[in-house]
């Protein structure tokens, strides 16, 4: 029997159909990998679990809180308490989308199958971005309702119709998308899972610590440009003193994936795979 009875014909392919093929390839990879589901489950459990837990404990402590403590309480921030950890998992999904290909050597097969490396990166970014936006926004809303319900006894709970709430919930989806794409960029630049995750960890947790130790006003000026702070600025119902305007904070947030993916694209194109 001949190995090649079936013929795979090369039709002249338009750029749209060609790029769609790259997107389906990345979708197949992500869906066929068990860790994808494990990570999304973990992120969901943390995001949807922690917010309501904190709300419940706050509600039970509420009668013992001072007036100042009550005044400082932020029901929106409580919703997102679990997202601090969940964001790392979602961003790691972005890192792994490329770093797992470097660690297994699969990246060479990928680039042999599609030598237009920047287009492959763009396809990965679209797939990861779409998942992060979808899951992130869903988690945001899914956490909001139980958290606020449990805060009901405190009288601080927010309704969906409260000014700024929907914007804040959508903004968290956008933030998670930006951080996942930053992870993809870092994974491509470092070509390693450990390197990419370490980069993320540094960006989200270590750099803010270091910046807060800077002398004023630099601690605030630089601090407002860091991803974690931008998340607070975008999802807060009220603008804090010294914060960027909302459009400005959105632009600065989007600069992170743009810069890291841009550098990654340059490196991919120029260097040996």
């Amino acid at each position, binding site marked *: 029997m001949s190995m090649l009875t*079936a013929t795979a014909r090369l039709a002249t392919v338009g750029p749209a159909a060609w790029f769609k093929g790259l997107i389906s390839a990345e979708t197949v990879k992500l869906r066929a990998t068990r860790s994808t589901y494990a990570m999304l489950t973990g992120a969901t459990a943390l995001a949807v679990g922690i917010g309501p837990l904190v709300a419940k404990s706050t509600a039970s402590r509420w009668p013992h809180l001072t007036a100042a403590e009550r005044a400082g309480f932020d029901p929106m921030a409580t919703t997102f308490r679990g997202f601090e950890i969940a964001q790392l998992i979602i961003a790691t999904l972005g890192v792994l989308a490329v770093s797992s290909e470097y660690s*297994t050597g699969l990246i*060479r097969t990928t680039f042999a199958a599609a030598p237009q490396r920047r287009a492959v990166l763009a396809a990965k970014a679209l797939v990861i971005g779409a998942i992060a936006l979808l899951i992130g926004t869903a988690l945001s809303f899914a956490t909001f309702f139980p958290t606020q319900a449990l805060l009901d006894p405190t009288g601080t709970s927010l309704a969906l119709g409260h000014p700024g709430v929907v914007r804040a919930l959508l903004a968290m989806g956008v933030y998670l998308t930006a951080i996942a794409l930053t992870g993809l960029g870092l994974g491509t630049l470092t070509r390693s899972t450990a390197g990419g995750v370490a980069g993320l960890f540094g960006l989200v947790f270590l750099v803010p610590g270091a910046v807060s130790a800077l002398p004023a006003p630099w601690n605030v000026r630089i601090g407002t440009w860091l991803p974690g702070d931008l998340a607070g600025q975008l999802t807060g119902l009220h603008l804090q003193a010294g914060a960027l305007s909302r459009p400005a904070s959105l632009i600065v947030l989007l600069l992170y994936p743009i810069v890291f993916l841009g550098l990654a694209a340059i490196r991919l194109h120029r260097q040996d795979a």
Partner: protein
Amino acid sequence: MKIEVADVTKRYGEAVAVSGLTFTVEPGRVTGFLGPNGSGKSTTMRMILGLDTPDRGDIAIGGHRYRGLVRPMHQVGALLDATAVHPARTGTAHLRALACANGIAPSRVDALLEQVGLGSVARRRVGGYSLGMKQRLGIAGALLGDPSVLMFDEPVNGLDPEGVRWLRDLLRDLAAEGRTVLVSSHLLSEMSQTADHLIVIGRGRLIADTSTQDFIADGSAARVIVRAPYGGDLARVLIADGAAVEARGDGTLAVTDLTAARIGHLAHEAGLELHELRPDQASLEEAFMQLTADAVEHRALAAELTGER
């Protein structure tokens, strides 16, 4: 379509992996890419696939650079490293991702998995595959796009004897269909049974670009094994003709400095019966090692003399 490698040099830092390498791989025959480990075979194959960029020189497939090809699997199929798979994905998923990127129907994936003998494990995770199964998976991947150029890096590794025979038949069939087939190996014995043509490199330099037959004929002067009922008489005849003869424990003679043809002729003239007359495969391998090792030493010496490096 030909693979044309023209004056290609590749350095990694200080180390020169490939140096001034020029050769052409022609369609319609199996070309063996032969050289010891670390001689630059894999580097060259990576450069052919556009994965690594040469520091100097040019590589074209059918007149095009690989990185300019759109959906290249229809023109070039390659297996570089069978173990470069994501262990958590199934064989089907691995191939389907490649098929998607090249606009190949999923039905083709299933058919090929069946044809390479992985039909029953197609939906198992690749992490559980043996090396031989991964080789078959990689070969299926190379064949997905029905390409006219095929390239395999050490595909025999991990295959069982039945798999090796299957692969040899496959390579010959592919070449017989007019395709360009380049297969690398570090073992001459293996290539001598599969390849019609050999490109031999040592330390990144071309050593030979010749038919397998000629390469072996040159090398076989090294040693010939003879089995004859009157070994002593034959040995005297051969020694008289200038050969060095060594009696081996198994009753055969190892003859150096005479060709197999000359030995047969002398035995015939002396009226001596022969039961076996063959070039010593082990000595062929030695000659090949010697050849590549010489190339290395000469180059090192030349470099020293000219103050290179």
